[in-house]
């Protein structure tokens, strides 16, 4: 009975993470289309939500081994480590629950500050933190075995350093080329034509996001089910898990992380349709190329780099201050989510069993509620997402966000 309740808590938390993953990343695909007016804000989020839903169902392949990138709680086939399975898999469930909490808290905090940051890195950070205190340093896959890109270094640190740079180069070259080629064409004519290119390329980014990101939560939930003895097939995901994850990420996308959309669409550079098209094409191409070559990049880092690149390529003003804040957020994503994950694990472990898991869940709810309440002080939604950029409207939150205490 206890084990079942804990499992339910883990599944609900995983779906909540999937939901935050959705709204955190709406901006990656749609911020530029919203900023240039190619799509009305509501239309953009509906389109992106549908494509994420479709994308999630397209991913038939099983991503059961998703945690193997950074921690050692399952083997290569995806089966959980046997020594974590006593007592209904409670040891493994607590690590997963604490890790998910770390990811969610970081996603919500960065959303509150209007900063795009990688949801996968937040999840990985939470898992690393929980594993580090739960199983010790040996439980963490720091650098893999050296035969392929693996571990915290290969799957998180290196991609985070390289992907924005790649995207900046591709998008700036694309923007420069577009402006060179269309010089002599009436601006309105170019603007209209590029809107179509922009919508098309943004749709590709949304679809790719659905196939990549929903899979991760499906893998985590299935791992929890196997650990608790409610599923045994390491080659398939239960249908209800697939449906639930697809719906959660689509609902999240539809909600739209307006604060992040605003930062990406208006905060970094003033964007035009040709720039929007260059940015989304660059994002789509870099994301697809990297997943084809097995070099896992974060959609968020690529999208942000692409948008910066269009400013560089056109030679317009880039607000490097805003970009700097983002890079800082990326650098501390892993440790910050890790600290939350570790703390949650310690709380859950000390209280133990159902009480521990329920307390962790309660803390998560309290933190989420607090951040939601804070967000009301500077409301951003589809009605004011495109207002002129006047400084960073969320900066007043920084002291509170940075030390985690309310003023």
């Amino acid at each position: 009975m206890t084990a079942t309740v804990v499992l339910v808590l883990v599944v609900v938390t995983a779906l909540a993470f999937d939901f935050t993953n959705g709204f955190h990343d709406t901006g990656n695909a749609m911020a530029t289309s919203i900023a240039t007016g190619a799509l009305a804000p509501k239309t953009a989020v509906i389109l992106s939500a549908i494509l994420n839903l479709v994308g999630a169902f397209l991913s038939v392949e099983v991503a059961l081994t998703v945690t193997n990138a950074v921690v050692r709680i399952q083997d290569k086939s995806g089966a959980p480590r046997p020594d974590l399975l006593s007592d209904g898999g409670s040891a493994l469930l607590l690590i997963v629950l604490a890790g998910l909490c770390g990811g969610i808290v970081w996603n919500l905090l960065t959303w509150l500050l209007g900063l795009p940051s990688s949801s996968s890195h937040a999840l990985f950070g939470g898992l690393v933190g929980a594993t580090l205190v739960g199983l010790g340093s040996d439980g963490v896959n720091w650098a893999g075995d050296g035969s392929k890109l693996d571990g915290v270094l290969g799957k998180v640190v290196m991609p985070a350093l390289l992907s924005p740079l790649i995207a900046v180069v591709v998008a700036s070259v694309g923007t420069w080329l577009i402006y060179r080629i269309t010089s002599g064409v009436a601006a309105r004519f170019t603007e209209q034509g590029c809107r179509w290119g922009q919508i098309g390329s943004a749709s590709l980014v949304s679809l790719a996001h659905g196939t990549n990101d929903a899979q991760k939560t499906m893998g985590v939930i299935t791992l929890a089910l196997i650990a608790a003895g409610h599923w045994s097939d390491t080659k398939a995901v239960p249908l209800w898990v697939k449906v639930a994850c697809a719906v959660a990420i689509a609902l999240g996308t539809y909600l739209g992380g307006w604060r992040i959309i605003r930062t990406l669409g208006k905060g970094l550079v003033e964007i035009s349709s040709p720039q929007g098209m260059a940015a989304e094409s660059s994002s789509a191409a870099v994301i697809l190329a990297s997943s084809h070559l097995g070099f896992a990049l974060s959609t968020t880092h690529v999208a942000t780099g692409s948008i910066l690149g269009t400013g560089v390529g056109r030679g317009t003003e880039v607000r490097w201050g805003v970009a700097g804040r983002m890079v800082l957020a990326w650098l501390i994503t892993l440790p910050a989510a890790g600290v939350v994950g570790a703390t949650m694990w310690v709380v859950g472990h000390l209280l133990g069993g159902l009480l521990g898991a329920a307390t962790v869940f309660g803390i998560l709810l309290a933190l989420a509620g607090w951040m939601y309440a804070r967000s009301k002080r500077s409301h951003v939604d589809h009605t004011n997402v495109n207002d002129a950029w006047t400084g960073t409207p969320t900066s007043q939150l920084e002291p509170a966000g940075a030390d985690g205490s309310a003023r």
Partner: protein
Amino acid sequence: MNNVTLALDGAWKVLLTGLLLGAGLPAIFALGIRALAYGRGGAAEVDAGAPPHPAGQVVGAACFALVLVGVGLGLTFIVASGFGKALAFTPWPTLVAK
């Protein structure tokens, strides 16, 4: 340090492919717009007195078709990888098992 070497090795391939598709296709799209404007003439050009050139329309359409093929390949890639297939270029794009 293996991860660093492997990452840099992957990065330049991603950069190259990214430039080819992520900057190349938009450039062809822009070429399509350029040709279409040349084809329409008048208000589509900065020089509003430019006469229409029907050939421009044809070239423009060809450019857009090329871009659509590129996007189609991208879509195929996303869908195929979801079903455990991969896109191989031999040199023609074909679907193979992963």
